[in-house]
């Protein structure tokens, strides 16, 4: 049984899909703090996505989080990132002059162009950027179909 999977070629439409998925899913991003509005709107974390025949790489800007506190899960072709950011806030005896950094809990889901298991995900955290490498399994890799001459 074949299932036709379409992966849009337009580089921007990956996020059209993400947006529609987000409104359906539970998305909490509480307490943007005081000061100016967070530039991502309600989207957190911001992500850049790369693609190849081997799989997908997602870079998410997550400065100052404890990587152990970030929950990464895959179900089918849906990747979910969940965690807490900048939880510290003001220490005892402190008052604030400015609070601009995003703070609170976040949940974000993105739809991959293929299905994957959790063991297909490798995560690394460097300088505040979380990089997720999701590899395509053999069955999901695109197969080259030879066009025979008539």
């Amino acid at each position, binding site marked *: 049984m074949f299932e036709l999977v379409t992966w849009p070629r337009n580089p921007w439409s990956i996020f059209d899909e993400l947006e529609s998925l987000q409104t359906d899913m539970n998305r909490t991003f509480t307490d943007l703090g005081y000061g100016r509005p967070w530039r991502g709107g309600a989207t957190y974390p911001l992500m850049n996505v*790369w693609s190849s025949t081997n799989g997908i790489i997602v870079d998410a800007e997550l400065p100052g989080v404890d990587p152990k506190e970030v929950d990464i899960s895959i179900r089918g072709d849906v990747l979910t990132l969940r965690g807490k950011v900048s939880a510290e806030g003001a220490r005892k005896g402190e008052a604030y002059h400015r609070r601009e950094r995003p703070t609170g809990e976040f949940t974000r889901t993105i739809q991959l162009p293929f299905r994957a298991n959790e063991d297909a995900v490798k995560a690394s955290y460097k300088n505040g950027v979380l990089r997720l490498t999701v590899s395509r399994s053999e069955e999901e890799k695109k197969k080259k179909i030879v066009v025979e001459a008539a």
Partner: protein
Amino acid sequence: MADTEVVRREEPFPATSPGPTVQRIQAPETDSIYVPDVDIYEDSERVRLMADMPGVDQTSMNVTVENNVLTIEGQARVDGPQGYELVGQEYGVGKYRREFTLSDAVEVQGIKARMQHGVLEVTIPKREEAKTRKIKIET
């Protein structure tokens, strides 16, 4: 354009001031300059500044003070994965830069800065005279 602001003990805390909007400036060398989000806290002993600069490590971070202006500047870097094509982009990678005017209440010599996980923490101690003293009320 830099954001300059005064960090002064007697300034009322900005409960509702909107602050500057995010600026993205196209520098002549076509490297974008971003204004990092900051949290500024103050207690009786020191002023503490936390700035989000993901993608910057401590070797590409510059913290300088000149004429009571504190400048934080960092170059973000990304290792573009080999053999992959960028299919979606929500954030740009470039320079971060922001300036702050320090008041006379702080002791610039004692500035300390550290960088971890893309967050810069700068602490500036207050001058002895500026530290809050608790005054005992006599009965």
